[in-house]
């Protein structure tokens, strides 16, 4: 009996040895002293641990972004010039800027340009590229189209506006005659997306899926107790043709920066090897843990 149980117990011991302890990272010269005050010594390792806890989550993502920038939108002469120009603009308005950046810890003006201004220029370029690289997702989510939209306060006015458009009158003329004065939808050409929360969802979907440009065939009504009525002329819903305009408009959307980052973290298999940082991301930004789809799903659910 004792002999028979020996094998499973050994197997169990082997399995238990597979339990990993929590892995946190350390620097090479962790035990080197930085300063000694009385009987208290501070080592580089202690300093690293504190900096990792206070700034690590942000800093690691910043460093990952720099890797992505170099892969996707490497620095070119044009970017360098833009970064220089941006710095000049700051310096024109603030004579003490160089002193201030040195006080912050940067070596000099060039160090600041390289570490702050250039990545900023690269970030803008990456955002534009993202609208091309992840076009399918963006189109599906935002349903962008260029259109002239007119808001009317009654169904009757909207019907008349639709007829006038069909008769060939310009959208501006129709808006002046039948549109709601206080509305921001006055027949001007504009980008329509799902961010336009005032517009009926049916209108946004219809504009995005229409097979050809022209007057939209019906009046679109909001589904609330005090409905508004919309008519529209589709100018274009060709994503590729309008991508620059879409990027300019949606690029400033705060959620877009995160989507862009997550897209490229996923593309390049971003993986974390420090338990403390992993736990922080898991709790605060699980969408960055792109190699753990179960955690990313949690993030989507709580968004």
């Amino acid at each position, binding site marked *: *009996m004792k002999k*028979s*149980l020996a*094998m*499973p117990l050994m*197997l*169990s011991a082997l*399995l*238990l040895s*597979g*339990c*990993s302890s*929590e*892995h946190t*990272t*350390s*620097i*090479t010269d962790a035990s*080197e*002293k*930085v*300063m*000694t*005050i*009385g009987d*208290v010594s*501070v080592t580089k390792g*202690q*300093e*690293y*641990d*504190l*900096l*990792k*806890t*206070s*700034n*690590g989550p942000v*800093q*690691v993502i910043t*460093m*990952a972004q720099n*890797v992505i920038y170099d*892969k996707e939108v490497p620095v070119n002469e044009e970017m360098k010039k833009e970064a220089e120009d941006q710095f000049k603009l700051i310096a024109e308005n603030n004579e003490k800027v160089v002193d*201030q950046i040195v*006080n*912050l*810890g940067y*070596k000099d003006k060039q160090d600041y340009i390289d570490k702050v201004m250039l990545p900023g220029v690269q970030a803008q370029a990456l955002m534009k590229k993202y609208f091309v690289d992840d076009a399918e997702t963006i189109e599906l989510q935002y349903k962008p189209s260029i259109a002239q939209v007119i808001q009317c306060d009654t169904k009757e006015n909207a019907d008349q506006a639709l007829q006038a458009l069909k008769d060939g009158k310009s959208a501006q003329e129709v808006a002046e005659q039948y549109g709601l004065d206080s509305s921001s939808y006055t027949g001007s050409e504009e980008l329509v997306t799902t961010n336009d929360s005032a517009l009926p969802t049916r209108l946004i979907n219809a504009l995005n899926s229409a097979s050809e440009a022209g007057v939209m065939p019906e009046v679109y009504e909001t589904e609330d107790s005090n409905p508004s009525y919309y008519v529209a002329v589709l100018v274009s819903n060709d994503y590729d043709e309008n991508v620059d305009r879409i990027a300019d408009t949606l690029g400033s959307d705060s959620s877009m920066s995160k989507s862009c980052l997550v897209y490229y973290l996923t593309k*390049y*298999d*971003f*993986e*974390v*090897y*420090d338990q403390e*940082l*992993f736990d922080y991301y*898991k*709790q605060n930004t699980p969408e960055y843990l792109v190699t753990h789809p179960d955690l990313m799903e949690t993030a989507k659910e709580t968004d």
Partner: protein
Amino acid sequence: MSDLIKDNWFVILIAVIIIAFVGYFVYDSNTGKVDSKKADGKDVVASLADSNITADALFENFSQFDGALLYNLYRNAVVEQSVETTKEMEEQAKSMEKTIRSNVSSQNSSTYRDAITQELASYGYGSYDDLYDYALMTVKQRSLNQEYVDAHFEELKDSLKDAKPRIVSIIKMEAADPQNLTDEETKKRDSIDKAIESDSFAQAATAFSDDAATAAKDGLFGYIDSSSSASSTGLDQNLLAKGLELNKGETSDWIEVKNSQTGVISLYKIHVDETDLEKIHQNKDEDVKKSLLFSILNAKAGLEADILENAAKDLKIEFEDQDAKEKLDRYIEQLKGGNA
């Protein structure tokens, strides 16, 4: 084979149960655990594409901007070794720790706890469990600052000479509609006015004020000066302005004050008890002492750093890393210039 199973079925069952149990335990304890990775002998923090972000590279990036952390570590060590811990300090630190922990609990969010942990790390404390140590350090530093300011008050008081320093008292009278007082409210207001005139503001406050906290201290609100704000003192902006306008011994008219949280309007009077800095400094009230100390530390850029440097003279200080010394010196210079 089948005979073997028949003969040992119970042992096999136990073995299968043990292995299944241990297997699940191993799986569960490894869920959410990260793998370790090394590149050229260095710990890798994260990787993407063909690039590794090593702990060394991360530290190099950090350490360029670590002046504030070095200063905080230096401060913690100097304060810890320069001020002897008393029972009273321990009580104050426990109370401070309790308040912060209770705020964290009431938020019921580990995100908030993470934010406190990050904040503590930037002050030089490694984990949320070090909250008490941080609280004790702040109590001890206040004691260090107080001792220095008391000893150097003659030279430091000039920094407040144009700041209209003063101790003020208040009386609060609640009224349903301050514009249309009821007979009873009018009677109470007149009684307060009469008591201020015939007795003293302090006696009137004790007898009539609807603000329990100040009424219990003869109406004493505390120290204010021209740098005080409604948010830093909790005193309404109009009362604050009137308090700075009056001379010693003067009392304001009734002032309507709207509670920003409840929207309830009450009537207040403010009285200036003292404007002489020497006498203010000698006041024994803890709140007055704290507010005066806070004002002096704010009025003279870098005073707190000076006090630390003064205390550090008694300790042997050695910088094994000269870069760290330069960064610390630069940070202290910024504090003294008021730019940090």
